[in-house]
């Protein structure tokens, strides 16, 4: 740790600790499971960045979604995201969560993941190299520094939008809304 970081630590300990302790939960739905193990083990060693995999969403604050998202896996993705504690950051890995990628005309994949949960950063490519995760992490550090990695804030503010999209994709959701939805304003918007 260099010397000018110490003043940053004293000024904003929460922000600095969020930066350097990213406990990741990997949601390897389709592809991407090949790229993640070399990153967390001896070949590329993500632990020197403070990134370690954890087993439960409760302990995590970085959510990495790799590969295509089918309609069926969207449900656990939303449940996992809502169980994480704030502040939490989400990164989409690969082309398919961005715009459908090679599944652009498939009937059972989700084309734009950021309509359903807020995404703080994308890693494009099919598939990206494992090093791309480190580029994403360093970009995420910059975004956290500038206060732009605010996915959880956007989720709270636009929860109606996200919930409506989730219901359109999945039908009726069998869990209560995470945040209070103001029903009057929603009706006004529909009209």
């Amino acid at each position, binding site marked *: 740790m260099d010397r000018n970081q110490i003043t940053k630590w004293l000024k904003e300990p929460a922000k*600095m*600790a969020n930066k350097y302790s990213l406990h990741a939960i990997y949601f390897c739905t389709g592809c991407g499971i090949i790229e993640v193990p070399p990153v967390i083990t001896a070949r590329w060693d993500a*632990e020197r960045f403070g990134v370690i995999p*954890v087993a439960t969403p409760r*302990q995590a604050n970085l959510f990495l979604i790799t590969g295509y998202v089918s309609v069926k896996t969207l449900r656990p993705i939303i449940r996992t995201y809502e169980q994480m*504690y704030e502040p939490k950051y989400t990164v989409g890995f690969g082309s398919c969560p961005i715009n459908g990628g090679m599944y652009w005309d498939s009937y059972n994949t989700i084309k734009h993941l950021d309509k359903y949960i807020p995404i703080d950063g994308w890693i494009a490519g099919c598939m990206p190299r494992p090093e791309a995760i480190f580029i994403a992490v360093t970009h995420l550090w910059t975004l956290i520094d500038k206060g732009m990695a605010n996915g959880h804030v956007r989720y709270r503010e636009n929860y109606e939008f996200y919930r409506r999209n989730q219901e359109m994709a999945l039908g009726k959701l069998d869990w209560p809304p995470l945040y209070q939805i103001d029903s009057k304003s929603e009706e006004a918007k529909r009209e």
Partner: protein
Amino acid sequence: METMVTKVVQIILSPILALVVGVFFLGLARKIMARIHWRYGPPLIQPVIDMIRLFYQKGVSHGAVFDLGIILSLAGSIVVVLFLPFGRICPLSSSGGLLVILYLMLLAPLGMALSGGQAANPNVSIGISRKLILSLGYEVPLLLVLLAVMTRYKTISIVEVVNAQQSTGWSIVSWQLFLSGISYFLILPAILGIRPFDVSSAPQEISSGPAVEYGGKYLALATIEHAFALFIGIALFVNLFLAGATNPVIFFVKMLVVFVLGLFIHAVYPRFRIEQAIKYLWKWPTLLAFVGLIVALITRN
């Protein structure tokens, strides 16, 4: 008055020292494991960074017992630390002794069980049942080992055990207690909950067991409790078999050596299944501890 003041200072000081040592061990464990894997590894203060982050995160409580159970386990650990001599620092040396430590060591897993049980997650119940079965496994040889030590030195006070060793030499190299010392070292990974005995906190099988519903400040408190548990398991071994120490620095060095030896075991062994762990714990360490107790009984005079 003088002794009163030093006692109060020691009561405040010794848990803080134990916490610093335990957290240092947590960081060192991650670094050494990384170097064994030929990785660079995280900075040494990574557990502290994690804890700062966790304390700033919002947590969700699952009820009053969920909050109180983890505090009970933390308090239990702190009280055990007060009874353990750390060099010459031992605030409650005149009272208690090994029997009290043996009883109070049960408080930490019990609090965790209460707290985790409130969360009603199936992984928690599996983890807790594994943890209690495992403690059933290592308590038998541990009790035999402690009985052998108490028989050998004719006292239940841990301070007197340390003092006797200062004059007669380390008890693990004396032939009367050699077998008991080996037995304690064999069950040490089970007491610390490291591999091959990390059945209760297995992240790949049961999503890190009792800690599955912990996040935010709950996980930070659980990490602190884990640091205390590391300290207690190793400090007890150093006090009983490596003659303690006359000052905290030498005591710390002895703890460090034992911990790094344990880490090497942790690094190379895969995980036991729970019935394999019980089979192992009730076979070799218990046998050694039993023979050690008989040897200590025969050579008492």
